[in-house]
C-alpha cells in the first residue's frame, strides 16, 4: 500500500513536471526583429547594493545611471535611431543587498515581469555572474558595467556588452611594464582568491616572468581577509622593493591601514581601489597612509575635453556634483558611462529588438570616445579600449592628488620611486 502511494505520488510528480517543462519554453522572450510602433518609454532595469560588501562601489555606479537618466529625460528622452526620435526613459531598480542570490531573482524579475528594454547588471563580477546566463537564455543584452570576470565572455554568448572597464585580466599589463621600466626585481604580491583579483595577479606574474622577473612572495588570501598584520611581517622579512596588493575596497582599506600602523615603509605599495574611491580612502585610511602609494589611474583622473557621446570630463564633474553632492568618483563616472553606451546602442540600433541593440553597441565600438576613454569591444563583447594607467598619490595642499605616472602618453606627473622614508 505504501509502495502504491509512493508510485501514485511519482506519477503525479511526472505529470506536473511535464506541465512545468512545457511552460518554461513559452515563458522566455524572443528577440524579434520586427519594428512595431514606438513605445511610450524605454524601460531601463538594474539592481544595486544598498548595503553589504559591495555597497560602497555599487551606490556610486547607480547614481551615475540615475544621472544619465535625468540628463536624457531633461532633453525629452533618449534618442532611438529606429524611430528617429527621443523617447523618455523609465528606470526600474531593485536593491540586491550585495547578495548574488537576491540579485539573480531580481534580474529574472526585470526580464520576465518588468520586461525591460535595457538590462544593466550591478557592480562587479560576483553580482554580474547570475545575470550572464539569464540574459543569454532570454536573449536580452546584458549591459555589464564593471563585471570584468573572464568566464562571462565566450564566443557563443552574443548578449553581453562590457561598458566601463577592460576585462580584469588585462588591467595589470601597464603596471607590469612600469615595474620593468623601473628595474624593480624583488616584488611581493598578495591577492584575494576571487576572479577579479586572482586574474590580475596571474597576469602580472606571467607578464613579469616573461621579462625574467620572478615574484619573491606570491600569496592568495580569502576575500574576507581584513587583517594583514602577520602577512605584512612575512612580506617585510623578504625586504621587497615593491609590495602589490590586489583586493576589493574592503581589503585594500585594512591593508593600507595595517601598513601604516605597522610602521613599515616600502619603496612601492600598490593597491587597486584608491583610484576608484579616493574620497572614501582618504576618510578611512587618511592622507598620510595614502601618500606615495600607487593605484590604477582610472579615466576619472584623465581629462577628455572632446568626446563623441555625452558630457566631457569637466562638464560631467560640475553637473554631477550639482545633482549628487559629494558622490562624485570614478564609479559614478562608470555608471554614467554605462548610460552613454546604452545611448549609443539605441542610436545605432535598427529596431528595439535585443539583437539590434547588441548590433548597435558593436557599431559604436571603435567609433566612440566618452569621458571614460575609447570604447572598443572585441567580438565577445569584452571591453579592450580603456587601458588603466599606473597612478601615484601625491601629498598636496588639498590633501592628496592622484596623478597618472605611466605610460608617458597618459602621464600627468612623474613617479617618485622609492617612496620617501622607505
Amino acid at each position: 500500500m505504501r509502495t502504491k502511494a509512493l508510485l501514485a505520488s511519482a506519477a503525479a510528480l511526472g505529470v506536473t513536471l511535464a506541465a512545468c517543462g512545457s511552460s518554461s519554453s513559452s515563458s522566455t522572450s524572443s528577440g524579434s526583429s520586427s519594428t512595431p510602433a514606438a513605445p511610450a518609454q524605454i524601460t531601463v532595469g538594474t539592481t544595486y547594493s544598498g548595503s553589504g560588501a559591495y555597497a560602497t562601489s555599487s551606490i556610486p555606479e547607480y547614481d551615475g545611471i540615475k544621472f544619465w537618466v535625468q540628463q536624457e529625460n531633461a532633453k525629452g528622452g533618449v534618442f532611438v535611431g529606429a524611430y528617429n526620435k527621443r523617447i523618455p526613459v523609465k528606470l526600474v531598480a531593485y536593491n540586491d543587498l550585495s547578495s548574488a542570490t537576491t540579485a539573480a531573482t531580481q534580474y529574472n524579475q526585470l526580464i520576465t515581469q518588468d520586461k525591460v528594454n535595457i538590462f544593466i547588471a550591478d557592480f562587479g563580477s560576483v553580482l554580474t555572474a547570475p545575470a550572464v546566463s539569464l540574459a543569454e537564455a532570454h536573449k536580452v543584452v546584458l549591459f555589464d558595467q564593471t563585471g570584468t570576470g573572464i568566464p562571462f565572455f565566450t564566443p557563443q554568448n552574443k548578449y553581453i556588452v562590457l561598458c566601463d572597464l577592460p576585462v580584469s585580466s588585462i588591467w595589470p599589463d601597464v603596471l607590469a611594464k612600469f615595474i620593468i621600466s623601473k628595474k624593480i626585481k624583488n616584488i611581493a604580491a598578495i591577492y584575494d582568491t576571487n576572479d577579479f583579483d586572482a586574474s590580475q595577479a596571474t597576469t602580472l606574474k606571467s607578464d613579469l616572468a616573461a621579462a625574467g622577473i620572478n615574484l619573491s612572495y606570491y600569496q592568495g588570501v580569502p576575500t574576507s581577509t581584513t587583517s594583514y598584520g602577520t602577512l605584512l611581517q612575512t612580506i617585510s622579512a623578504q625586504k621587497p622593493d615593491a609590495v602589490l596588493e590586489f583586493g576589493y575596497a574592503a581589503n585594500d582599506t585594512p591593508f593600507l591601514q595595517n601598513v601604516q600602523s605597522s610602521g613599515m615603509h616600502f619603496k612601492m605599495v600598490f593597491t587597486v581601489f584608491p583610484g576608484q574611491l579616493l574620497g572614501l580612502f582618504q576618510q578611512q585610511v587618511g592622507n598620510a597612509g595614502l601618500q606615495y602609494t600607487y593605484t590604477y589611474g582610472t579615466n576619472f583622473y584623465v581629462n577628455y575635453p572632446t568626446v563623441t557621446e555625452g558630457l566631457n570630463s569637466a562638464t560631467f564633474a560640475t553637473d554631477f556634483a550639482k545633482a549628487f553632492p559629494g558622490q562624485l568618483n570614478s564609479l559614478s563616472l562608470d555608471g554614467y558611462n554605462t548610460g552613454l553606451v546604452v545611448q549609443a546602442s539605441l542610436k545605432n540600433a535598427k529596431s528595439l529588438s535585443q539583437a539590434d541593440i547588441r548590433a548597435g553597441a558593436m557599431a559604436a565600438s571603435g567609433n566612440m570616445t566618452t569621458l571614460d576613454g575609447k570604447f572598443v569591444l572585441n567580438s565577445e563583447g569584452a571591453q579592450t579600449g580603456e587601458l588603466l594607467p599606473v597612478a601615484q598619490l601625491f601629498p598636496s595642499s588639498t590633501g592628496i592628488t592622484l596623478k597618472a605616472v605611466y605610460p608617458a602618453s597618459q602621464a600627468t606627473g612623474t613617479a617618485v620611486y622609492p617612496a620617501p622614508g622607505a
Partner: protein
Amino acid sequence: MPKTAEIKTLQNTGSKTKTLISPAIATLVPVIGFALAIHVYSNELLLTYMAIYVALAQGVNIMYGFTGYLPFGYFGFFGVGAYVSGLAMLNYNLPPVVAVIVGGLGGALVGAILSPLFRLRGAYFAIGTLAASEAIYTIVANPSLQSITNGPYGLNLANYYSSGMAYGSAIALVAISIIAVSYVRGSRFGLTLKAIRDDPYSASMAGVNVPRQRFYAWLISAAIAGMAGSIFGWATSVFYPQAVFDSSLSVLAIVFALFGGVGSVWGPTIGAVLLYSVYNAIGISNPEYFQLIYGLVIVLLVLFAPRGLLGFWNFFAQKIRRKRVTND
C-alpha cells in the same frame, strides 16, 4: 470474526490509510503548487530558488528536527554539491539530471568525511560544522587547485543551462525531501532518532546504535543539500565559490525550518514558502526592511512560538478540542 477484533482491524486499516495519505498530500500539494505557480508567475528562477529552500529546510528538518543537531555549516554540502555536479558536467559531460544525483552523492561523501564532528554537541557541533564548511570553501577557491576546481574563477555551466529542466528538478527534489522526511517520521528509524534527540544515553541503553542512526540521518540531510546545491548551480549557471559557499544559505534554511516547525512534514515547507515569499515581496520593493522584519519574526518566534507555526497551530487546536470536551 469477533466484533472487537473487527473494530480493531478497521481502526488499524484507517490509521494505516491515514499514515499513507497525509505524506502523499504533504508531497503532492507543494509539488502541484510549484508546477502551477509557473503559469501564474513567470519569474522561474525565483520559484526554483524557493523550491531549493524548501528542500534545504527539509534537510535541516531531518538533521535538527529528528536528532537535535543544528548544522550551521549546512551550506558546505550545498557548495560541494554545486561544484561536484558542475565539474561532472564540464569534465565528464554528464547530463545535468545525472550530475545532480552525483552532486547529492558528493554531499553525502563529504558528510561521511565530516562525521567525526558528532563527537561534539550543541553549540560546539554547530560551530564545528561552520568551520568545516568555511575550510571546504577555502580549499575549493584556492588558486593552487585551479586545475581541479577552477579556483576562484568559478564555473560556467552556460552550455548546460535549461531553466525549465532545472525547475523541474527542483520540484522533484522538493518531493524527494518531503518523502524522506515522511519516511523518517513514520518509521522505526525516525523513532530511534527522536529517542536519540530526547535522551541519547537512554536510547543507547535501550539498544539503539546511536552513532550509526545519527550518521544515516546526517547522510540523508547532506545528500539533500548536495542535490539542492547542484540544482542551484545549474539554474544560476555562472557562479563563483562565494555564491554557493554562502553561510546565509544555512541561516535561511534553518530559519525557514524553525519558522514552520521542525519535526513535522509540513512545517519546513510552509516556513520556506511563506518566508521566502515575504522576502521577495519586500525584496522587490524595499529589501532593507526585510532584515528588520526578519529580526522581528525571529524574536516573536522564540518568544511566542518556539515550535514554529505548526506548534502554534497545534496549541490552539488542542485548546479548542479541550473546550469542546468541556462543553460536551
